[in-house]
């Protein structure tokens, strides 16, 4: 579904990603883990065209995305939930979702009933300003907003950051359900091991802008040495 081949990207002259290569199979939830500053967020930004790609390829179903403007990358089928959620504080829940519908290639609100069905709290509070929401509610809104763009691949950047544990579990289960129902491919950048174990089928470990190791969830459950190697300081 999404192939990254020998990707080099960074800020100015400083390269953060060094020949990063991996493939996301269709419908699979993959977690990308690593310590802070290893390039996880940079990878997502490079895929979204928010930072320039120096070399390498990003292919969505075989079509190159690198160096396309961000809005076209979104329209081609990649949804993005940025770190820190970045909901529009002064917009109501409905306006946040309508905005995403306007940005999508369909440009209508036909998916809205489905979104409200997945996340009933958004329907209950559809006229409430997003800035008045708790961190967990904002995260739900940010994910729903990305889903409104009808992505085939969803990139999630640390969705559990600053959210209480019971909501983390709920979010993980809901995303797994949506992925199963819609064959959505998910790349989850996450440091919360519980969230990763709730959702992911495969885990990638990143260090210094390179892919260092990968394993299935079953392998990780048998031996968590990789977690210690790539996550502990």
């Amino acid at each position, binding site marked *: 579904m999404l192939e990254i081949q020998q990707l080099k990207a960074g800020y100015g002259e400083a390269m953060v990603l060094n020949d990063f290569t991996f493939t996301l199979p269709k419908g699979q939830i993959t977690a990308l883990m690593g310590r802070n500053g290893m390039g996880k967020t940079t990878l997502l930004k490079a895929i979204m*065209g*928010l930072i320039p790609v120096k070399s390498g390829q990003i292919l969505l179903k075989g079509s190159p995305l690198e160096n396309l403007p*961000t809005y076209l990358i*979104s329209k081609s089928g990649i949804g993005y939930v*940025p770190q820190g959620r970045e909901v*529009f504080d*002064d*917009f109501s829940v409905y306006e946040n979702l*309508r905005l995403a519908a306007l*940005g999508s290639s369909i440009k209508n609100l036909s998916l809205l009933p489905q979104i409200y069905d997945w996340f009933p709290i958004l329907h209950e509070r559809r006229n409430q300003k997003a800035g008045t929401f708790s961190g967990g509610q904002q995260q739900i809104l940010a994910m729903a907003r990305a889903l409104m763009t009808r992505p085939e691949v969803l990139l999630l950047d640390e969705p559990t950051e600053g959210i209480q544990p019971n909501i983390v579990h709920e979010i993980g289960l809901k995303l797994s359900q949506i992925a199963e129902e819609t064959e959505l491919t998910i790349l989850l950048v996450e440091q919360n091991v519980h969230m990763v174990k709730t959702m992911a089928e495969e885990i990638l470990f990143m260090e210094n802008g390179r892919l260092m190791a990968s394993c299935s969830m079953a392998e990780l459950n048998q031996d968590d040495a990789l977690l210690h190697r790539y996550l502990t300081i």
Partner: protein
Amino acid sequence: MDIIIPLFDAMSYVLILVLIALGLMIVFGMMGVINMAHGELFMIGAYVMVLIQSAGLPFVFGLVLAPIVVGFLGLIIETLLIRHIYLRPLDTILATWGLSIALKQGIVLVFGPEAQSVTSPLDATLVLGDFSYPMYRLIVMGISIALIAGTFWLFLKTDFGLMARAVIARPDTSAGLGINTRKLYRWSFVVGTALAGLAGALIAPTISVDPQMGLGYLIPGFLSILVGGAGPLAGVLVGGGAVGGTNSLLTVWISPVAAQIAVFILAILVIRLRPNGILGGKNEK
């Protein structure tokens, strides 16, 4: 009546100032462009009226043509200059300052440095007892109110406005949702410049039209944004009211110099006490 006529004059000035400041605010709030040539675009709107009148065409035709001509000029400026310096406010000051000089000199070459006049299309005066006021100025006030309301409607009630406000708040997040930020920047710039052109055309019969006229509105326009707050559109109303009202009323009641000093003191006080302006909130960017 000694109070009412200066109040009407002040209101007329405030409304034109708000139209100009709205254009400036849209362009600055959305693109981070401090457009020093905005006053010259206002001036070109007035010169379109001079041309229309000298060609013997109807005044209303000029009111339609001025925003189209200036908006089209805005489109060219955006394509050739502004789009290369988005979100770089200091660079935009230099680039648009140079542009303002070029536009002024262009007008001098075509029309000469001397002032031109545009005859009011309406000589009638509204008389109510002891109160009398030129009808054209009242019509300008009415059109200005309608334009301001229209701009608010465009930005607060339409899909274009929703996307524009999203891009102002979070450009990268908006692009990540599939919003074409470049296209929005372009058309918002055109809307802002067209508003300036229309304001210039509207006010042309009430002032002397000359190549320097833009500066007299540009500085109060920027001060209106500073005082009201560069974020919410309503800030322009508050800022324009405070700056334009103070300037216009004190000019009549005390002197133009005292009015200028009072406006700058007001701006300094607002910067000191509310750095984001009276209605300016936090910046989400």
